[in-house]
């Protein structure tokens, strides 16, 4: 019973932490779409003509994922997307590091005021990936723990159903 409680606490803590990261990350991008498009362009991953599409959609996706994490709804889908996004961002950072393209990060701000070295961003985003993978694992463990006793009884009912 103690272990189940610990898992529940870890589940909530990880979700709230990730929610904070995603909501905070979305804010500046929503306010400054043009600047964010310039950040996306700076990564030199997409052809110029497609740059605006992620600049338009990604901030809202991040905000939505943050809110969903916070309220604990649609958790499987949310955690799947959160992990997919964070892993993708991390891979892009690593690829650009090896390409010698130092564009800053643009992760939380669309301006270049964050001027830390790329390795720092790779390390920090790596931690976010660990958090997200941890959240998915804890959520899974929580479902396993809840399933035999009460299939729909604990918090975030849709996830356990």
């Amino acid at each position: 019973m103690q272990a189940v409680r610990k898992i529940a606490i870890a589940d909530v803590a990880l979700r709230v932490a990730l929610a904070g990261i995603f909501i905070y990350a979305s804010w500046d991008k929503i306010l400054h779409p043009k600047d964010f498009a310039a950040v996306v362009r700076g990564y030199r991953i997409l052809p110029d003509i497609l740059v605006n599409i992620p600049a338009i959609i990604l901030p809202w996706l991040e905000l939505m994922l943050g809110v969903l994490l916070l309220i604990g709804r649609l958790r499987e889908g949310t955690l799947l997307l959160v992990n997919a996004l964070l892993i993708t961002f991390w891979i892009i950072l690593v690829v650009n590091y090896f390409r010698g393209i130092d564009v800053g990060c643009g992760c939380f701000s669309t301006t270049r005021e964050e001027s830390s070295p790329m390795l720092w961003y790779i390390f920090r985003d790596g931690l976010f990936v660990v958090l997200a993978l941890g959240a998915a694992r804890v959520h899974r463990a929580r479902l396993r723990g809840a399933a035999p006793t009460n299939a729909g009884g604990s918090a975030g009912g849709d996830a356990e159903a």
Partner: protein
Amino acid sequence: MINFRKALAQALGILTLATIVGLEVDFFRPDGLPLLNAGQSSVKLDQSGSEISIKDAALLYVTKRAVFVDARSQYEFLQGHVLGALNIPPSDFKFLFKTLKPRLDGFEAIITYCDGELCPLSHELAGQLRAAGFKNVLVLKNGWTLWNNEKLPTERGGMSGFTPAQSEAMCRQCGK
């Protein structure tokens, strides 16, 4: 047990919703972005002020995105003009416009010029072209002098692309 298909379905739902919200908001906000980003040109065409700098004019010329129209007299035009330019003095606008109109279509900009800081002909011609329905008309102020100062391509004689007979027909002041 986590159901991967359920997770995938939820993820697609969230992604769809985020796409719809993002596109809707982008459509209505004043600083919204076009969905597809056309390659950005360093040339900023002034839609209101109607003048263009020599640098931008030269860039549009080199990339063949602009047609140049000399507003000076036909005599001055014969002595030298921007390579490939057309010649429409404002006083002959009605006479020449119909013949030259097809050669003004299909460009990003129509650039009129004459010579001298205070020369009114290029502005006058720009006004006539706008009145005739062209919206992309820009004036290169003191154009002929600036063009020569930068040693950009010029030529002498009549408008290129016309037979001598056509040129003669359009030329009211030649040799006078």
